[in-house]
């Protein structure tokens, strides 16, 4: 490969990935594992049937503190941050004045005056540029980029909670779904959020950088399979979860992205509220929807979707789902063609393949 000038960042777990024989690729400025020698399908299967883990230390972790922290976050986040009790979290969107989605994020309420905002690696800069001047103007709030102070390991799957319990003396299961708490692993204490991006139960464990490898190795010793970005993409798509930068960009609004259930427009001073109300009242021409390809073919990002000879949509994500043994995807469709059961065709590199709109998610875990 010829472009030798870009310096890629490495997480604290880089050496562990190399030791495991991971295939490393550039991702959002980071050198990240895309897969390990066992392959994407085995990795996805581990997440669906046992426990897999992902190094997600590249994600941005912004600590927002001060007596104005919660009210500030209410002005920039689509969640009712003031209504989140300490120890809980909420998925939401960070929108600009026009209602465009700058990023999707999880806000963890750590305390009365302290929140942790987890943002996508590729959007951290844009989020900071959006937030910092507004925080400064408002006062009483400080935003610290703590991304390099902590690693983040997502342990996911039906055995994830049991596994984290074993390495934390039962600390894992004391944290309920969508909560965040402190656990002790390998003699160190660390935050663990019971959240994830795979459709499975599990944790996002945040050890200090210095102990990250120790925690990773403990999990390896427990039989947790390391999984790369390839498996992460399959898992999140099977679970009907969107990827910012692929399924939505700043050009999209939450209504067409099908994310209106994550909007709370009544936080005092919420910057995007007016634009979002207007978009809501006007309605959107298109909407995100899931589809299944009815032939053996993968419809990938950017492929056009047809009804007869008219273009009625575009694919944003597509893959082969090993869990369902089906070719699945999502994209934007004119609303008239976005209802489950609608038959469409997709141009797969010059070949028209038939597809059907289905409801999301493609995969939902069995709940006890």
């Amino acid at each position, binding site marked *: 490969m010829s472009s030798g000038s870009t310096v890629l960042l490495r997480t604290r777990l880089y050496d562990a990935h190399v030791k495991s024989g991971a295939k490393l690729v550039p991702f959002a400025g980071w050198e990240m594992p895309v897969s390990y020698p066992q*392959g994407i399908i085995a990795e996805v299967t581990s997440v669906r049937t046992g426990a897999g883990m992902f190094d997600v230390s590249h994600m941005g972790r912004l600590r927002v503190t001060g007596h104005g922290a919660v009210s500030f976050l209410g002005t920039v986040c689509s969640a009712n941050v003031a209504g989140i009790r300490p120890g809980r979290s909420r998925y939401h969107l960070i929108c600009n004045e026009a209602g465009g989605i700058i990023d999707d994020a999880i806000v963890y309420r750590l305390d009365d005056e302290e929140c942790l905002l987890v943002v996508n690696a590729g959007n951290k800069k844009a989020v900071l540029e959006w937030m910092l001047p507004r925080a400064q103007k408002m006062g009483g709030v400080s935003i610290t980029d703590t991304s390099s102070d902590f690693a983040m390991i997502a342990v996911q799957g039906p055995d994830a909670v049991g596994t984290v319990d074993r390495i934390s003396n039962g600390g894992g299961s004391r944290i309920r779904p969508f909560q965040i708490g402190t656990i002790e692993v390998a003699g160190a204490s660390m935050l663990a959020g019971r959240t994830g991006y795979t459709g499975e139960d599990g944790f996002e464990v945040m050890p200090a950088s210095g102990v990250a490898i120790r925690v990773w190795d403990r999990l390896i010793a427990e039989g947790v399979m390391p999984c790369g970005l390839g498996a992460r993409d399959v898992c999140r798509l099977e679970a009907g979860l969107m990827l910012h930068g692929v399924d939505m960009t700043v050009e999209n609004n939450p209504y067409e992205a099908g994310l209106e259930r994550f909007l709370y427009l009544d936080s005092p001073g919420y910057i995007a509220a007016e634009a979002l109300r207007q978009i809501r009242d006007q309605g959107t021409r298109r909407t995100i929807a899931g589809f299944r390809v009815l032939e053996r073919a993968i419809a990938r990002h950017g492929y056009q979707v047809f009804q007869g000879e008219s273009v009625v949509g575009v694919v944003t994500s597509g*893959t082969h789902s090993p869990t369902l043994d089906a070719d699945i995807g999502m994209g934007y469709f004119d609303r008239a063609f976005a209802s489950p059961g609608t038959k469409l065709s997709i141009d797969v590199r010059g070949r028209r393949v038939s597809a059907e709109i289905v409801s999301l998610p493609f995969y939902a875990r069995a709940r006890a």
Partner: protein
Amino acid sequence: MAAENPKDLKYSKEHEWARVSGGSAVIGITHFAQDSLGDIVYVSIPGVGSNVRQFQKMGEVESVKAVSDLFSPLSGKVVERNEELLKNPETLNKAPFGGGWLIKVHLSDPAEIDNLMDAEAYDRHTADGH
């Protein structure tokens, strides 16, 4: 992990191999190619009776991650194709130089073999990650 590239095969820059015997050749993709692609889910290869041309597209191989074109290392008429592989594409990952072969071609121009690399040259070609 790196599997040996068999000495009795000829290789193309695009990571296809040819096992030439008499006037025909069995064609496949290399270990390097399958390893770069990852888990292969679909293979599309020309049917018996169709013609393939050296270094021209002859099909596609698709993994969970990406789709790649297949280029024929030699010209000729397809006399056999690996029907088993179409049913079990993962064979390409497991045995790229064996059970994962793609097609057998009756060569139209055996002199084209000189345009291919031997195993040693192909080792060098892949050593820097191409």
